[in-house]
């Protein structure tokens, strides 16, 4: 296991806007060419996000700090190997129908 910041060469912040903790990441299958530059941690991220997964779950599952995971995701999106969909604040987070469903579910707990 490499120290996390060795993986990201000391980078702790990805370029541009910080990824939301509940932004959903989907990864692609890397080609043989891709594998030449991909670090083992990139491959771990890719294998975990074959199915859509949130940034927080990804960091938790891989036991990597959030900042490191954000950098790795940034590398992958730059190379077209991952896509991130960040929910707009007004999109579903405050959608009344979704909140109603959450409420119903909470009442059953």
């Amino acid at each position, binding site marked *: 296991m490499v120290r996390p910041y060795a993986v990201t060469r000391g980078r702790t912040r990805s370029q541009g806007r910080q990824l939301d903790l509940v932004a959903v990441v989907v990864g692609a299958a890397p080609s043989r060419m891709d594998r030449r530059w991909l670090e083992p941690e990139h491959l771990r991220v890719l294998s975990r996000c074959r199915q859509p997964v949130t940034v927080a779950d990804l960091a938790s599952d891989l036991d990597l700090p959030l900042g490191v995971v954000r950098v790795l995701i940034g590398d992958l999106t730059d190379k077209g190997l991952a896509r991130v969909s960040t929910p707009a604040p007004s999109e579903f987070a405050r959608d009344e129908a*979704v909140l109603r469903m959450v409420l119903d579910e909470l009442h059953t707990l």
Partner: protein
Amino acid sequence: MSSTLFERPAGARPVAIKILIAGGFGVGKTTLVSTASEIRPLRTEGARSEAGHALDDVAGVQPKESTTVAMDFGRITFESNIVLYLFGTPGQERFWFMWEGLARGAVGAIVLADTRRLADCFGAIDFFEQRRTPFVVAVNHFDGAPRYGEARVRVALDLDPGVPIVMCDVRRRESAVQVLIAIVEHAMRLKGSRRV
């Protein structure tokens, strides 16, 4: 890039809902997350506040030594493909820059309060008021702590009449879930009233 790389079975994408849990150190944030949800390990950077270290690095440069700390993180997965995420916010004011990202898109926030240290939640209340993030105040009962009624807590915290106050014991699951219900109901109410 080739779009075929990303073809996935439809419908697998979770709908993620975010609720924040704020409050002073030791007020019961971790307990609330672990009682109400499946608590998960999560580490983040630059949030040494809870450990009480001084912020000795103001240049924005990450120190060589790891400064990662555990962050309160839990989730409740519902059958309807909705996942409710709970995130504890770092307690001290100098880490509020972290709250900005956390608060963005959140359904709302729970401000946990301890009657022995009510002033600990002033900062959180100000923060959510300014951003118009829906929040409730949940008074966590500690054994031996003074028990104030809702009215006294409201006065002490200078809360608007519209902000719900719930009394709770976050060690009890039923009570913890009631707090979650309170914030979702409050968020829905505000949503309804703001639209008019």
